[in-house]
């Protein structure tokens, strides 16, 4: 039975209070976005709409869904995210584990090699040429392979393994005749659900939000992920003033009208594209459960 002291209760009150403030502050712009997605753009841009929808209209969503390319993008993104993340986990987890083992010869070199790439790289052009020479331009595969792992995630995962998988575990396993492979798959992984969940989330989100690599390496529109199509819409209204400078008056009318549509659509586009990931988080949360290590060492 837990004993709650007075200090504890004060702590709880302050904690809850602070968190509620955080909740409200963070939620406001989110509500704003939802409301803006169903409001008239003039009301939004003039500041009249500030919390609840003004001049309710579903036109933004209608146009968004009328756009066939959005659905194509969605399907592509799901493909890239699922398979990309699986690949990422398969490459990153074992490597990070090996890097966390103090008895792994070559550990320091590998560490340095990984960190070095976070700073120095040939840049876009040579990488593009390498990809071209591999024949991987304009393929779906390249989007899965690029970013097969990331230095940042490797290091974070390695840190996790270092600090939560004790050496005694490995020693007792070896005494029992385990190989590294069995140690990793049967013992370490099940204990690491939290970090697997986090990495699945990090990699998954990276894939979900990715657009730059697609823009650079892909030239067939059918292979584009969702974010590329969304960006076209978003960038369009930003670029409008520049485009207006050099067109005839009738084209100007159309561009202005399209920008207005882009304005209407952009908030809805954000919601449509981020909803799945936002929903994914609570589902993954249960893997961050306490007491994962319980019982592993005892006995």
């Amino acid at each position, binding site marked *: 039975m837990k004993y709650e002291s007075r200090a504890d209760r004060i702590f709880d009150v302050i904690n809850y209070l602070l968190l509620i403030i955080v909740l409200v502050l963070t939620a406001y712009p989110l509500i704003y976005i939802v409301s803006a997605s169903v409001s008239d753009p003039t009301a939004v841009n003039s500041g009249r709409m500030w919390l609840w929808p003004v001049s309710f209209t579903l036109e933004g969503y209608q146009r968004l869904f009328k756009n066939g390319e959005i659905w194509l993008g969605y399907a592509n993104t799901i493909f890239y995210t699922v398979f990309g993340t699986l690949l990422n986990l398969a490459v990153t987890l074992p490597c990070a584990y090996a890097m966390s083992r103090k008895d792994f010869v070559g550990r320091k070199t590998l560490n340095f090699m990984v960190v070095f790439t976070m700073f120095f790289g040939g840049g876009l052009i040579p990488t593009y040429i390498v990809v071209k020479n591999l024949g991987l331009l304009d393929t779906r595969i390249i989007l899965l392979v690029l970013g097969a792992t990331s230095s940042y995630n490797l290091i974070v995962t390695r840190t996790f393994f270092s600090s939560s998988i004790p050496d005694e575990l490995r020693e007792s396993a070896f005494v029992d005749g385990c190989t590294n492979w069995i140690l990793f798959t049967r013992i370490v992984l099940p204990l690491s659900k939290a970090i697997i969940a986090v990495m699945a989330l990090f990699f998954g989100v990276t894939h979900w939000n990715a657009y730059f690599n697609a823009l650079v390496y892909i030239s067939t529109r059918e292979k584009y992920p969702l974010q590329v199509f969304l960006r076209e819409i978003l960038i369009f209204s930003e670029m409008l003033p520049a485009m207006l400078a*050099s067109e005839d008056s009738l084209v100007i009318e159309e*561009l*202005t009208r399209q920008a207005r549509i882009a304005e209407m659509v952009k908030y809805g586009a954000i919601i449509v594209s981020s909803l799945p990931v936002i929903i994914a988080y609570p589902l993954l949360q249960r893997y961050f459960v306490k007491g994962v290590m319980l019982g592993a060492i005892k006995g």
Partner: protein
Amino acid sequence: MGKKLLSLVIVCMLAMTSLALAEEITPIVDEPLTITAMGLKGTLFVENYEDTIVGKWLTENLGITVKSEWYSSDIWQEKKGLAFASGNLPDLFFNAGLSSIEQAKYGAQGALLSLNDLIEEYGVNTKAMFEEAPYIKASITTADGNIYALPYVETLVRDLGGGRYWIHTGWLEKVGMEEPTTLDEYYDVLVAFKNTDCNGNGVADEIPLSGSDGVSVDCMVLRALGFNVLSLSDFFNVRDGKVFFIPGDEGYREYLEYMHKLYAEQLLDNEVFVQNYQQFVAKGEQSLLGSYEGSASYYIAPNDGYDYTYMGPMTSDRNDTPIFTINGGLSIGRTAICATTKHPVEIFKLLDFFYSEQGSLLNDWGPEGYAWEYNEDGTWSNLVGEGCETVQEWRQGYVTPCCFNQYGPYEFKLKQNNANAAWLNQLTIDNYEPYFTYRFPDLMLTEEELDTVSGALTDVGKYVEEARARFIIGEDDIAATWDAYVKNFEAMNIETVLNVYQTAYDRYAAAM
């Protein structure tokens, strides 16, 4: 004898008819040819060029299929660079907007094909265009004498560039004043706008002058002071054959002082530097705007759309010749052929075709019967396709995205049966055409010249922009800081830049 004459006439007529028909549609190639074209995606709704009506027309009638690869503006720079770097060049660029610097650079490096010989040999329409408007050729020829890219040329007066400056006629009536013709008169009008309930809603919410991203009617003011500027990035002008730097000139100081006065007295919307275009338009839609620069009043302020008229070019105590700067309707760098293509001649013939009246029409509006059709009186009206809301959506998304170079087509555009277009045209003819002044040219520099000036120009450009904002808002006092401001340009090597531009200008003047 009679019979012979008759048969001769018939034969002649047949020949002429078939000639006419032949002139209409001659395939450029013997076998169907597919070429790739890379460009900017200029409109939101279109998918692939080869599927548009004009794309299909090209395939059927000229035998050439143009496959498009297009990208939105935020990745366009990288894409161009990558295409050149990796050797993965398309056959041609279209809707490319290649700047004069890019044309000079990539041309000199051998990435773009020099078109001079092709124009000489096959460019029937191109040469005709050059004859009609010599400034075109001078503007697209690089310093080494080559033409690497072809422009899109507007010929209708309303589309020759220079901006459109609007003032509310209803409000002028309300305050009982005439359209201003000098800067001082304009100031008085703005004051009157501010102090009267012009939009009749009982609230003092009138904004006499507004704009977005820090720009309102600046060029109009600069021109009133005697500068021939197309936009705020025009830093150079020429005076008695000598090139000088505008932002360091005494006249520019007057411009700053004028704008600062407007800002300080709240005649110029104090949010002009922090609001974007959409916010500006939102104010127009609420009938708050007295004057502004914008594409079309019926678009920016739809509720008062036709109650605006053009503000004519103005004069000031510094300058008594009204100037309206135009760029001659020239949009350079629209199409260019890549040096690696295997079909330079065919592609050039295609580009030359677009300079003919028929080709220009095709690029602009597509074949008859889709986006337009002739009326009985010789004018033509728009048509809207199924599933599209406006004619423009239909036209640019499905019929023709206007990606190629074109010239005019002048006669055709005049006959359009569209009230807005006609209204704009008339306004331009009445207010601006008499004062048309061709801009200070976008000079083509050699590679060494570019090398010398690009570093300095970047810094100069930034400084001009920043300082201008600070002066207009009043953060820096013009009187106190002007000398230091001018001195800074010397520190940035403006003298070297001026020398380079003088040389380039002399070259241009000689080529005209």
